């Protein structure tokens, strides 16, 4: 359904933005996103390997950070620009996996192969980088998710060493918590991370199939979800966002063919509200341009029994709450697009006997 009202909130599907593209107006396996100044969405595109017989750090393409203005309505999206590319040099990344933006508009991109954070200014100019591997670590930690709190502290999840680290913006390690396991406070391949307006830290505990909530010092507070595919259960949660009312949004995948995914919505106290499964019944502006330019695409779309398979999320990997505009932005990773839902508090449900 396009519109769903639950417990006094209404989630109203708005539109989608994007199409598959190695550059420019579109995305290539977008896995992380953050909203910067002037409503610009910064998108980390994982890209793909595709170049053989070259050095290991030159095999990929499509990897980049895209800058997009989403617009308020369908068709208003605007491509602003893009920066960075596949590689291990300054300002490049191999496996971009997380992005966060500080109060000055600086863009922090984390790379889970190179285990480092790279900082760009809001125009995409390379500023600096640092390794997230501590002196006490013996191998790569797979730094994968990143978030910034109201005081400028950086929180980074380590997907391969199962920890959360807190840094200064300059990269000085302040604190670290978490060990490999499934008990409260323990982690298994954590990925997405966010900080709410009260300073609590939420971690997508990927292989434990839950989201854990911590204090900024790493003390366990509570957890959301458990492993499964029924209502309120999670399968490989990879990203989490919290809105100003405290509602928690968790992005996950489905093991069934890996072609579906959901965004689960919980109340602050952990009560499950609903799940979104993707509602892109119309193509985005840029996707429609591709179809219009390929006559056979248009013909085939009219021959299929239903376009419903393309409405749904396919491995969504990032969920962002746009507090300024009151909307949820979901990276529909395998469909190389974003699906946008407005959150409405004043929606009037029409009478049922219409």
């Amino acid at each position: 359904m396009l519109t769903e009202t639950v417990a006094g909130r209404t989630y109203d599907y708005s539109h989608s933005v994007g199409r598959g593209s190695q550059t420019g107006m579109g995305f290539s396996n977008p896995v992380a996103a953050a909203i910067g100044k002037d409503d610009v969405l910064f998108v980390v595109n994982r890209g793909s390997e595709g170049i053989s017989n070259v050095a290991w750090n030159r095999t990929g393409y499509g990897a980049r950070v895209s800058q997009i203005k989403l617009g308020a309505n369908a068709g208003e999206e605007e491509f602003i620009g893009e920066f960075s590319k596949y590689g291990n040099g300054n300002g490049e990344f191999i496996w971009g996996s997380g992005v966060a933006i500080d109060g000055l508009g600086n863009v922090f991109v984390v790379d889970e192969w190179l285990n480092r954070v790279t900082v760009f200014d809001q125009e995409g100019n390379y500023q600096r980088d640092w390794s997230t591997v501590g002196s006490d670590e013996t191998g790569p930690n797979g730094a994968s998710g990143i978030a910034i709190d109201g005081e400028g502290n950086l929180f980074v999840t380590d997907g391969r060493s199962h920890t959360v680290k807190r840094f200064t913006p300059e990269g000085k390690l302040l604190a670290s918590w978490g060990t490999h396991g499934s008990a409260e406070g323990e982690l298994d391949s954590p990925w997405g991370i966010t900080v709410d307006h009260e300073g609590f830290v939420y971690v997508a505990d990927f292989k434990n199939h839950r989201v854990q909530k911590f204090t900024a010092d790493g003390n366990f507070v509570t957890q959301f979800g458990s492993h499964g595919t029924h209502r309120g259960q999670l399968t490989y949660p990879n990203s989490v966002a919290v809105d100003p009312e405290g509602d928690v949004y968790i992005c996950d995948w489905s093991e069934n063919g890996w072609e579906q995914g959901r965004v689960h919505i919980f109340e602050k106290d952990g009560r499950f509200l609903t799940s979104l499964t993707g509602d892109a019944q119309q193509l985005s502006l840029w996707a429609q341009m591709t179809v219009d330019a390929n006559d056979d695409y248009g013909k085939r779309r009219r021959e299929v029994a239903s376009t419903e398979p393309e409405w749904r999320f396919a491995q969504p990997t990032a969920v962002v709450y746009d507090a300024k505009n009151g909307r949820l932005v979901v990276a529909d990773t395998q469909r190389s697009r974003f699906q946008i839902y407005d959150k409405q508090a004043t929606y009037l449900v029409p009478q049922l006997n219409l």
Partner: protein
Amino acid sequence: MGNNDIALMAHLMRRAGFGASRDELEARAAKGYEETVDELLNPEAQEPTDRIEMMRYHPWTWRPGTLPGMGAAEWMRDLLNTKRPLEEKMALFWHQVFATGVSKVDHYDDVMDMIVKFRKYGLSNYRDLLLEMAKDPAMIYWLDNCDNHATAVNENWGRELLELFSMGVGNYTEVDVRECSRAFTGWTIKPKLPRGPIGRFDWFFEFREEDHDDGEKTFLGETGNFDGEDIIDIICRQPATAEFICRHLYSFFVADEAQVPAWGVTPPRDEAAINLMVDTFIESGYDIRSVLRVMFNSDFFKEARFARLKSPTEVVVSTLRMVGGSTQFPAPGIGDLSRQPNYMGQDLLNPPSVEGWHTGAEWINSGSLMRRVNFAAELVGDTSNPGVQSMISRLHAQDARTPEQLVDGCLDLLGPLEVAPESRTELIEFAAEHGEFKWDTPEVQTTSSERIGELLQLIVSLREFQYA
């Protein structure tokens, strides 16, 4: 346990899998040969490879594009990491038999779906597998059964079903081809959403009754209102089918045979072996697992060491599994690794034609041989690779010092490999260039390790290393 036990186990693991480390060979030899055969034939007891790592770190492998030619990346990762080696080897075998390629299908994920079916049905009942293939979207598109209509028969699938997937030429008539094809009219695929602009979607089989010729057919001497399933039942009852499939199995697992098109005029290399396998195939109701059990436990299999040239995929996968290292984690570069068999003549998921690859000596030409040698030499020459370090540690533990000890030790750990006497002499001369190998200090250990790496590089350059 004797050296022969290790050599025999190494032979089994090269054929039924992609080789094994010395530690694994010793453990399996201690467990027993027939017990190992049973374990290999029942892969369900082992965990499958976990797809989540690829989805997380290489999301592009879910529905890869066709132009870069890296759609076999996920399969390569499975080949390198599987704990079910025979299941994966059977997938490779059936991919060679039911050769279907992305060059025409143009969707790697649909061809890869066939590999998943080979894992599921490859060790089970041949009839079930044949039926799955008849309904497989990639196969239907590859052999034009989507253009096979009640009012306009297309014989491509029907012909290849008889010629290449079951009986072989000479065992049916042109009328049989026509009648067979009529039975599969209406077996087609649903239109799917196009790949642009937001990625690829699944294909599904569809039976269109209104496009099916339900009339009477006479096929291989039997008459009835046959549909495709009836045809497959009749095919499976033919002795020619049993002979054809068993000859394929023999050629893939035991010893190189003539190429398939020559089978009608060239007798099997070992007729008694084929007859034993055929009897098992028929008596077991077309059960592939039963045939393989008899084959692996037979004397003709055990005596066939190094009677097959490795396929490019075997060269790549067995060498990488031997040296270990970064393949344990889906590191960047898995796409490039998946291309390596192609550079030696075997483009996975993209065979040259429905006939599959020509095997045996036809794998070798001047270009492919250099690729095979360079690929293996580069990996075994890198003494930081865990598998190479393990070999060095064993030689160190044996206190191997003389050139003869080192050469024999390396040949043992790389196979055990049997080489021509003159090759062994040349290897010893090379190893002797800098005198005895020393292990007394860290410095000389490093030097000895490097010399062993060079020696391993020479050995994998020998003709004998190209055989499995």
